[in-house]
């Protein structure tokens, strides 16, 4: 059986592809509607293409875009998109890409290339920081080792910043080994601010709810578009001079994940009370038939109180932006910066982590911010939960440099805006919002003996273990979570030998095909 696992990506308007080791991680990202398949096979193929991007008001702007090449992945979310598909990798993974330049020479604006600032690429057995992808449909094989866990931008570094701003950018998310790690990063000191913050989520009195579920991520890529400059940049086979592109640059459109206003806010999708189901069924017909599921549909976020989410912000554009979130302050936990010439700048995990309602995103900035999803602190306790006001509670996120909340000079608020919503108060007994943590996942190679230890936030229920992804063969359906939320499994699991991953799940008891909580982890071979 050729296994196709499906990767669910929460709350963003981005397509997600998992590669390398992560290809076996079926439900790493969770969201209300978004699914994407993992890559079976070892190579991701990307095309650079000409694109005609429709703005919120229907105006069409010529740009360049990445798209999944005409392979099995095309079914996932075929077609050009800006930003390009998110690549998800596990720290240390060896990733192989084949990148083809299918941009027409006449509209190419010169050469195009590929880089991931801060990541060494291997091309033709040479280590390089960037590579040119020749015009005319030529392709280049690129390999790299997934770097330290965090958020990265891949881009066309040439003619900076033109090719990046014109659409040739995307996101690489690198995840740490989750076994025994409740944060998005590796190697945090026990007493460090970020480690303490993640330790407190769902355990300290001020964070009633669950720990951070590594599935709960969002990505917001900011960009700005000047149609006149875009027309000039795509008007010939020669590269526009950056000074000419930047001179009098006057953005008319301000996008998050390539969309803006009503369409980045996702109104009409999941905004009504009751419409907050998580369709976590990895075996769904739709997914199997199509092999893929397009995840472009969610930029906005949702969850109950107590479901923290990591929002990965990237500024691919040219504006000093000022994202502002209502309803909760956020914690900025990790930062990186790409220099104006698209080279790697600084990268660090924050050591002094304040709470902010507005954060600075200068061009090239990457900020991971932890949205705690706490009960909004300025609702009077006597008015919680609200009775005369309905759930979901809907709050905006918008750039507070309000210039960017326009489109074509007006049309407020059709710019850099989205929203997030609180579906309900926290219910600690609801497995649908439960989080599985795995502290140990060892496979004894000689005997096939599997040892798994961990915790589930809902005591007293039963979990499954599958080999590989959630659609992989079942190892057991009877892992009992005890009254303290702990579980342990010891048994033969030869089925796990091939994949070297396991996935733990909780199913809905009435609808067993409906998956509530999942956690996939690599096995330590001993």
């Amino acid at each position: 059986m050729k296994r196709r696992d499906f990767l669910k990506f929460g709350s963003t308007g981005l397509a997600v592809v998992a590669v390398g080791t992560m290809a076996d991680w079926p439900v790493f990202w969770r969201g209300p509607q978004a699914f994407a398949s993992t890559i079976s096979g070892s190579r991701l193929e990307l095309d650079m293409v000409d694109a005609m991007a429709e703005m919120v008001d229907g105006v069409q702007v010529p740009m360049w875009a990445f798209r999944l090449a005409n392979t099995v992945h095309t079914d996932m979310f075929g077609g050009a998109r800006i930003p390009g598909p998110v690549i998800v990798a596990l720290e240390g993974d060896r990733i192989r890409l084949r990148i083809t330049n299918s941009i027409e020479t006449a509209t190419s604006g010169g050469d195009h290339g590929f880089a991931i600032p801060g990541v060494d690429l291997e091309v033709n057995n040479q280590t390089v920081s960037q590579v040119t992808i020749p015009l005319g449909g030529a392709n280049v094989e690129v390999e790299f080792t997934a770097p330290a866990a965090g958020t990265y931008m891949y881009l066309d570094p040439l003619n900076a910043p033109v090719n990046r701003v014109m659409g040739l950018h995307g996101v690489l998310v690198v995840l740490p080994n989750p076994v025994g790690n409740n944060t998005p990063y590796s190697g945090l000191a026990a007493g460090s601010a970020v480690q303490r913050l993640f330790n407190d989520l769902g355990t300290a009195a001020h964070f009633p709810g669950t720990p951070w579920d590594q599935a709960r991520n969002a990505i917001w890529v900011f960009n700005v578009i000047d149609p006149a400059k875009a027309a000039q940049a795509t008007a010939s086979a020669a590269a526009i001079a950056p000074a000419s592109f930047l001179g009098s640059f006057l953005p008319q459109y301000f996008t998050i994940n390539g969309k803006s206003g009503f369409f980045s806010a996702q109104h009409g999708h999941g905004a009504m009370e009751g419409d907050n189901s998580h369709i976590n069924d990895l075996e769904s017909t739709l997914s199997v038939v199509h092999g893929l599921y397009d995840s472009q549909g969610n930029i906005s976020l949702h969850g109950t109180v107590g479901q923290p989410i990591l929002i990965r912000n990237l500024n691919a554009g040219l504006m000093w932006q000022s994202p502002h979130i209502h309803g909760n302050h956020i914690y900025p936990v990790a930062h990186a910066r790409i220099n104006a010439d698209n080279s790697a700048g600084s990268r660090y995990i924050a050591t002094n982590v304040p709470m902010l309602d507005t954060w600075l995103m200068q061009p090239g900035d990457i900020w991971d911010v932890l949205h705690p999803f706490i009960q909004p602190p300025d609702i009077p306790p006597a008015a919680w939960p609200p009775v005369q006001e309905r759930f979901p509670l809907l709050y905006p996120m918008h750039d507070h440099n309000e210039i960017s909340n326009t489109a074509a000079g007006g049309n407020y608020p059709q710019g850099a805006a989205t929203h997030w919503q609180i579906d309900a108060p926290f219910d600690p007994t609801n497995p649908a919002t439960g989080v599985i943590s795995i502290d140990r996942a060892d496979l004894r190679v000689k005997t096939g003996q599997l040892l798994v230890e961990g915790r589930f936030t809902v005591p007293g229920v039963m979990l499954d273990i599958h080999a590989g992804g959630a659609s992989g063969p079942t190892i057991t359906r009877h892992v009992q979570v005890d009254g303290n939320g702990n579980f342990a499994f010891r048994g033969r699991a030869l089925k796990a030998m091939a994949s070297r991953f396991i996935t733990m799940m909780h199913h809905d008891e009435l609808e067993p095909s409906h998956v509530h909580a999942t956690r996939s982890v690599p096995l330590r071979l001993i």
Partner: protein
Amino acid sequence: MAEFIPRDLSSPFDPADPMQIASFEGFACDVPSTDGMIDAINNVPGATRANLLRAQQLFADGFLVGLTGGVDDLPTPDVLQPSPGAIFERRGLHDQQLNVPGAGNVLMWSFESRMDRGVVVNREGWPGPTIRVREGEIVHSILGSRSGPHTVHHHGIEPTPANDGVGHLTFEVAGGQYAYQWRAGEAGTYFYHCHRNTTLHFEMGMYGMLIVDPDVPGAPFADGGAGVTLVRDTPTAYASEAIWVADDIDARWRSLSVADGIQACDNDARSGFVLWNDPDNPRLNDFNPTYFVVSGQAAPAVDNGVNLVAGAGATLALGQTLLVRALNASYCTVVWKFPTTLQGTVTAKDGRTLGRAPFCSYSQPFSLASVGHQFSLTTAQRWDILIDSASRTGQHLVEIEFRHWITNALLRAVRVPINVAS
């Protein structure tokens, strides 16, 4: 052949679906209002579908039944008795004047205060009068509909959506008045502003400060005077307060009117957009400030190299402590440069006290020296800084650089004095 990327990629939008077009209209061209929702729920002819959908999404069944638009105010859901005195009333103002030295008067919009801390007043001016409360209070801030529709968003305060003042997700106040209900959960520096056609209304000046003082005797304190702030968890006295709000003004925008740039409803979510080549396009993406302001005091119209804004300055005696509350209310990135002759400690950001348990125990205060005595704030960011004047007497100049939102070019550096008397 270029590939087409639709605007609604992966979240298909169907304008023929009445729910979807109503949702679109409520977001953009027909933002619901207090009167509009009451009328829609009570089947008044002419009530729009956007108002009906929004009222149904926002409020429990029956909440608005029996009310009459234009007569009854929209009630506050889950209303509570406010804390004694914690009632404020504001109305929109479109006729205030700011004197810019060398250029004369410049039109500003603002908020008029009709009531502060439960006392009837009649205060105009710009920026709007401060809302100042004590931590833990249940506050009602009432917005009347004069010169509206407008809203009040209490920036950094996190109440329910109905009390958050974001028109396109909730409603604008048109007809009657609405009492926004919120709790002053955490002491700190906030501000309030209108959230309708915000690009224009905020730039035109529809904002005021909102300060939550710690729950200590004497709070809430008077603007500019002595008071108590938190350093970590410890109430700490200061002798003087400087509320420094950086703002910038594009004179061209003064000719615009409240609804300029709002698109028209069209049933297809396409043809109602304001077009770029429309001669009446307000070009709200084209912002070129020429006047620069600190706390309602304009720097000289023409750059004179110093650009002193003496009126916003602070005065204190040697050895006293000054609390600076810095807000960027401009559309520039603002770089604040403090003189190395003064030592200071950054104690809070965005209304959250660094190092305060439990939520801010992942942070700690830090010295101005540790950041080279300078820092950048983008629009709406706030820092609180405790300045220790023990070092020396005299005039210390704080430099405030306004940098362009795209090019980062320095548009103007203005200076505000801290005068330390012996």
